């Protein structure tokens, strides 16, 4: 089998920063709300004023441990914080409080569903650190202004940096890993993982080597990857670039490269020689942090079922297809909703169709959040509707309208059906005059059908359904038409 990389193979490691879902920052009491007025969520501590000291947000630490447990990591019984020193205007103390040699956790793994295979990625480590502020470059009438502004709202926001081993070998696998990681972190309530809001950011380390080689090639680090799509593109582009370099007799240079989504290329940001010496050392303002095995167990017990396990369960015990299970588990709130409905009904597959089909469509149109779904449409309401269709009280077509009506008015489906006279017409005596009328009015279509154009029948069925506002029992209409037209 030929391979796009020819005789080369790709080695990828990912460093993902996720923002932990805390109300306040990692070392001060400021809020972490996204989109607030610049510098409205700051204090002397997160703006690096003289004499200020950090105090660890215990909740952020526990969320970090929770994430690490979800990623099957070992939790360090003793952890400490270090200072990473460098100058940049968005870094108010001119050092970032991070973790250097004793991270909160290490040695984990994550399994993701790749294309036709399971992608298993080892997690090297996951550690806590604070975010920096954000530089803004205002425009002036003649182009970029000759000054920049800094918004420190993000400064001190808690991040978990999750570093994989170089276990990924294709851009598609990298995508699968990130998709799974995002799902796990959303499931466990650790992060929103919203790339647009910057609550999930990713850097990639990439190298290529000849297939079967045991030594890793020289790697480059790619930054500025702000969507999963760009990550795949950047990895494809960068691996091709490295192969071209090698094929041309050159050597890959260890450097940091920036992905330019406009041009669709990576370009040099800084070379190894220009790399910072961060002069990391233990932060003397923070005491080493100790966690007991009991505390770790207490946190472990609060972990929900992970998405992969849930998918498996949906397929194995609810009889859903892989595809349906994947869609339903993508969002924990949707999966929870589905399970609440399924508990009231014997045919999960049927409910899955409702949730995946009509309900998701309505949610999109109404901008309805999955979290508020159960409140807007209690599971019993959806199950009632499904039963009306299942029992032939209404047609599936009418059922879609009733669902919309239930969501709009909040009334029960049965009530809407009764009030609006939407019950199914399955009485041949009532339908025959309508069938005759449609045949009489559509001479050309009837002729087409009789001439062998079978699809013409569907048009006639549609006409009858229209006449009955969708209430007619479709199989019966079909049979009546076929009888009349002499199939």
């Amino acid at each position, binding site marked *: 089998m030929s391979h796009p990389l020819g005789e080369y193979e790709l080695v990828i490691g990912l460093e993902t920063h996720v923002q932990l879902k805390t109300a306040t920052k990692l070392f001060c009491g400021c809020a972490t709300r996204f989109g607030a007025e610049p510098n409205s969520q700051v204090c002397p501590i997160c703006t690096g*004023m*003289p*004499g200020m000291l950090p105090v660890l947000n215990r909740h952020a630490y526990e969320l970090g441990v929770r994430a690490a447990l979800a990623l099957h990591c070992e939790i360090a019984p003793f952890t400490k914080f270090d200072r990473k020193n460098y100058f940049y*205007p968005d870094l108010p103390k001119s050092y970032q409080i991070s973790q250097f040699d004793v991270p909160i956790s290490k040695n984990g793994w994550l399994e993701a569903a790749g294309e036709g295979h399971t992608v298993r990625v080892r997690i090297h480590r996951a550690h806590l650190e604070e975010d920096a502020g954000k530089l803004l470059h205002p425009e002036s009438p003649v182009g970029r202004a000759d000054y920049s502004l800094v918004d420190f709202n993000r400064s001190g926001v808690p991040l978990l940096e999750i570093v994989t081993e170089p276990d990924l070998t294709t851009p598609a696998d990298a995508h699968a890993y990130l998709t799974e990681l995002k799902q796990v972190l959303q499931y466990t309530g650790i992060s929103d993982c919203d790339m647009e809001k910057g609550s999930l950011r990713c850097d990639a380390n990439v190298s290529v080597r000849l297939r079967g080689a045991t030594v890793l090639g020289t790697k480059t680090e790619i930054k500025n990857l702000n969507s999963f799509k760009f990550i795949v593109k950047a990895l494809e582009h960068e691996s091709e670039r490295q192969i071209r370099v090698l094929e041309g007799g050159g050597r890959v240079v260890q450097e940091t490269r920036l992905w330019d989504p406009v041009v669709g290329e990576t370009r040099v940001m800084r070379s190894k020689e220009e790399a910072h010496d961060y*002069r*990391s050392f233990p932060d*003397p303002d923070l005491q080493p942090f100790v966690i007991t095995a009991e505390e770790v167990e207490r946190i472990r017990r609060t972990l929900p079922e992970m998405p992969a396990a849930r998918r498996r369960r949906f397929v194995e015990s609810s009889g859903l297809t892989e595809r349906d299970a994947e869609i339903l588990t993508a969002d924990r709130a949707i999966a929870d909703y589905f399970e609440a409905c399924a508990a009231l009904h014997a045919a999960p597959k049927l409910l899955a169709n409702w949730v995946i089909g009509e309900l998701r469509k309505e949610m999109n149109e109404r901008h309805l959040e999955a979290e508020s779904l159960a409140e807007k449409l209690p599971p019993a309401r959806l199950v009632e509707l499904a039963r009306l269709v299942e029992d032939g009280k209404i047609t599936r077509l009418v059922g879609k309208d009733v669902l919309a009506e239930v969501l709009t008015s909040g009334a029960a489906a049965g009530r809407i059906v009764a009030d609006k006279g939407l019950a199914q017409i399955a009485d041949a005596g009532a339908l025959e005059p309508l069938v005759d009328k449609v045949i009489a009015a559509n001479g050309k279509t009837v002729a087409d059908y009789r001439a062998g154009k079978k699809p013409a029948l569907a048009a006639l069925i549609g006409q009858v359904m229209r006449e009955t506002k969708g209430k007619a029992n479709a199989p019966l209409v079909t049979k009546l038409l076929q009888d009349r037209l002499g199939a």
Partner: protein
Amino acid sequence: MPPSAPTAPTAPTELTAHALRAAIVARRLSAREAAEAHFARMERVEPQVKAYLTTCREPALAAADAIDARIARGESVGPLAGVPVALKDNLCTRGVRTTCSSRILEHFVPTYDATAVERLRAAGAVTLGKTNLDEFAMGSSTENSAYGPSLNPWDVTRVPGGSSGGSAAAVAAGTAVAALGSDTGGSIRQPAALCGIVGLKPTYGRVSRFGLVAFASSLDQIGPLTRDVRDSALMLQAIAGPDPHDSTSAAADVPDFARDLEAGVKGLRLGIPKEYFAPGTDPEITRAVEAAIDVLRRAGAEVRAVSLPHTDYGIAAYYVVAPAEASSNLARYDGVRYGLRAGAEGGLLAMYKESRRRGFGREVARRIMLGTFALSSGYYDAYYNQALRVRRLIKRDFDNAFAEVDVVVCPTSPIPAFKVGEKAADPLQMYLADVFTVCLNMAGLPGISIPCGFTSGNLPIGLQLIGRPFDEPTVLRAARAYERETDWHERRPAGLA
């Protein structure tokens, strides 16, 4: 107007804090009179001593009036009610500029009070102003202040010591009854010794560092400079205790420091470390300290020799650890958010370089470079890590000594107050001024310097007493026992107006 006879025994500028508070509570003297007497004395002696960088006359008088009003209404007042105090200018004060004696913070006005300052105010103290220091507390003479040195009230051609030299000079000169300083390698005890007053460095963690502009975070500790040991206990009582804003403040209970103060030294075991009586110390100082030990022995203490074998490495290790932390702590002064900004027209890098080049003095720049080097990749193990190993050995020396004795006694400084400019050109000579004080900071121990005599040139000599972690009560008790037997602490400099 207040009485203006500073030499009269009842002058408020001559009193101790506990005596002054008693007088104010008994309404023999108002808090306003006490404050005004100090401002009046400042007008006369500040031109010679230059202890203050900023004075806060109006807010101080308002605070004093508030105390007087409470007393007039018969309400309870704090343990420092009406006591005029000075604050080293690296302690943040809300609405009052806090310069650290640096150009880079020349116009910096904090929006917050340091916890220790807040607690002093809550105890009723009246803050008169901010005192001079070596820039960012780096130095032993106040000559590293960007605003010029303070001078020793005993001889104004000499330095008051440092870095809390302004605080020590103010207390000695009668322009503050007590003061707060900070001690990273001796910065409270050494100036106290050179100015003939009492200076206490509490155990690391005893006093919150929140609002103290950091020099070396693992060594810095705030403490009082006072006229006697009782005042030292009183001040410590007001500022000590855990603070949720400082993760390194100790959860340890704060004892009543006054309780055993008068209990004497009978049965107390004093350790004399031979390494602190090595040649190189001024013989007059050695003699005075030996005489002081005799006084304590006669008062009932048991004296024995101890060894602190790693003392010699203290200065070297300290001058790696402290600059390393400082290089990171002082990186925030980058011209971006506050403080001096220069060279912005040349772009970001030029702004960093120019702001810091103009903002920092030579000694601060030297230590930032030392620390940056010590933490650099490839040198970290040889310098920083090695210094941390030495630090652990020094700590172990003291642990071993304290297995046998209750208090270690030694000189505070190897030399008395030196002439302005005498050591300014030789940083290494200046660093040696800390030789007897740095090891306590490295080990986190409490230590006090108390007056124990004068040189033939009438310069004060300090006696240092060192205790176990969080055992300030024993240190204070031994110091007080000595004080009761002597009157060195009652002497006031005569040369001032």
